């Protein structure tokens, strides 16, 4: 028996939020039906219950705004214009985007609502809708509102960094769509991160001010980029100057050829009467002089033009390849698509 009672308590506790939501929606639905049947006197108590602080059930912002709006509409029909304006203002203050459909409401209700709008100043911006935008062909759209004529300044900035970019600065009245091309104040594509759109307004009628702010995350969708070629390592380049050792080896090579020529002539000619060594002497002298001259030249002018040219060619080829890579990467970056998603507040971003 106790188990059954406990189960009943658990079920009741579990269902209570749904019941609360349902109660408010149900009551709002009933009030709406009474209003449609022009039974204003029966609709008003129900709507007042919903906006009452004593109403025990949960009321969403939309439900509360809806209740205030219909309270204003009902009171207008009841001829209580001042009270109607108050309730309309309450709806507008809670949601500046609140509107009356001219096809549904009477001209008197519309006029009363207009009066409420003139007396209440508020600006707002709709939460950002998730979107995938190619900045070359499309724009990110924000919807802002001023309840009546006002000087409105809309700025977009990266959270925690950067200079804000002004997207709109002018007089407006009502709802307006602001577009953003994805660029920041420096005319560069906005990097990934969290951004804030701030709307500040000053009423042209009352002089009062209001502001609103919305956050969104921005991500880039870009094709994978290619890596550029690394710097040429020392071993990938030819030596551009003779080393002192190489210059000294030239002397050894020249003397080696000279010795070899004399050796060939002397050794082979021994049993054929020695004698004719003129040819070998010429080659030996030429080789010795060549070795010494090469040593002196390389010591004073050690540059190796062929290697310098070959290295320059390799560097130019690398630079050309990197320029091509950078070009292709630039094309890919230029084709970056912006992914926009709503965010709850300031933070580190995606």
């Amino acid at each position: 028996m106790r188990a059954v009672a406990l189960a009943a308590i658990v079920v009741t506790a579990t269902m209570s939020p749904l019941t609360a939501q349902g109660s408010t929606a149900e009551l709002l639905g009933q009030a709406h039906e009474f209003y449609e049947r022009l039974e204003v006197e029966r609709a008003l108590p129900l709507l007042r219950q919903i906006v009452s602080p004593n109403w025990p059930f949960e009321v969403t912002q939309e439900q509360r705004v809806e209740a205030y709006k219909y309270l204003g509409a009902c009171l207008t029909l009841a001829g209580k214009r001042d009270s109607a304006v108050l309730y309309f203002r309450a709806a507008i203050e809670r949601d500046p985007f609140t509107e009356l459909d001219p096809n549904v409401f009477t001209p008197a209700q519309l006029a009363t609502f207009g009066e409420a709008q003139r007396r209440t100043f508020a600006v707002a911006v709709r939460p950002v809708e998730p979107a995938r935008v190619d900045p070359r062909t499309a724009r990110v759209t924000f919807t802002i509102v001023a309840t009546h004529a006002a000087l409105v300044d809309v700025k977009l900035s990266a959270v925690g960094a950067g200079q804000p970019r002004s997207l709109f600065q002018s007089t407006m009245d009502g709802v307006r769509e602001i577009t953003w091309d994805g660029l920041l104040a420096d005319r560069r594509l906005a990097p990934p991160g969290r951004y804030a759109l701030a709307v500040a307004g000053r009423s042209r009628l009352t002089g009062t001010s209001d502001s609103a702010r919305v956050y969104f995350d921005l991500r880039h969708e870009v094709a994978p980029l290619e890596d550029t070629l690394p710097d040429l390592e020392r071993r990938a380049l030819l030596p551009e100057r003779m080393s002192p050792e190489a210059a000294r080896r030239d002397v050894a090579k020249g003397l080696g050829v000279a010795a070899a020529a004399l050796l060939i002539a002397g050794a082979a000619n021994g049993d054929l009467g020695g004698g004719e060594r003129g040819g070998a002497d010429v080659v030996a002298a030429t080789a010795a002089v060549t070795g010494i001259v090469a040593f002196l030249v390389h010591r004073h002018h050690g540059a190796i033009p062929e290697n310098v040219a070959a290295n320059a060619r390799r560097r130019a080829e690398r630079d050309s390849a990197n320029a091509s890579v950078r070009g292709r990467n630039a094309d890919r970056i230029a084709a970056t698509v912006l992914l926009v998603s709503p965010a709850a507040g300031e933070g580190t971003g995606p």
Partner: protein
Amino acid sequence: MRAAAVIAGAGILGGAAPAGAQRALTVAPLVSLAEHRVDAGFGVERSLGPILGGVGTLRFGPRLAVAVRAFGGSLFGSTGVLDRDVGELGVEASVVTLPWLVLQAGAARRAYSTKLGRQTWTLVSLGGTARMAFAGDAIHSVWRAALLPAVSASGLRGPDMAFRAATGLEYRIRTTTLGVEYSLERYDFPAEAGVRRLEQLSALSLRLELRLR
């Protein structure tokens, strides 16, 4: 005749090279001052004179080359020695085995003629050429050595020992190479009737190598 066959073989070898291999032709006119010495038991006979000739080399890719050489000239004998004319036609195949080393095999037909008669030689050589670059790569030292394992000379038995050695320098300017070289060929024939014939041909050569294509 045999030389012609070797030349034909070289041609076949060249034709067997990969079709895609890049061919390069160089020609190298040369001028030599040659000295011929022979001791046939009557003392050393010495003759000296200029020789003109040329070498044409066809390269089949970076490793293989075939060269044909031809030269001729007159050697003027010293006192009491007959003047003689010399001419040679030869072919040689080369394979680059290391960047600085080329192995070579060749054959040549050589003729000496005097007013008394004519002697022909057939030479087969196996050897190599080493090139070592001076700093800067424009100058190379050249070292050649070859054994002549098969030598026949008309009227003579083949030599017991025959070799060729040479050394020199090459100066390269763009597609032109100027070479200066001292070379020597030595032939030691077996003794006959107690007489041992020794013969050698040495030369100081200047060669201008031109790359045609």
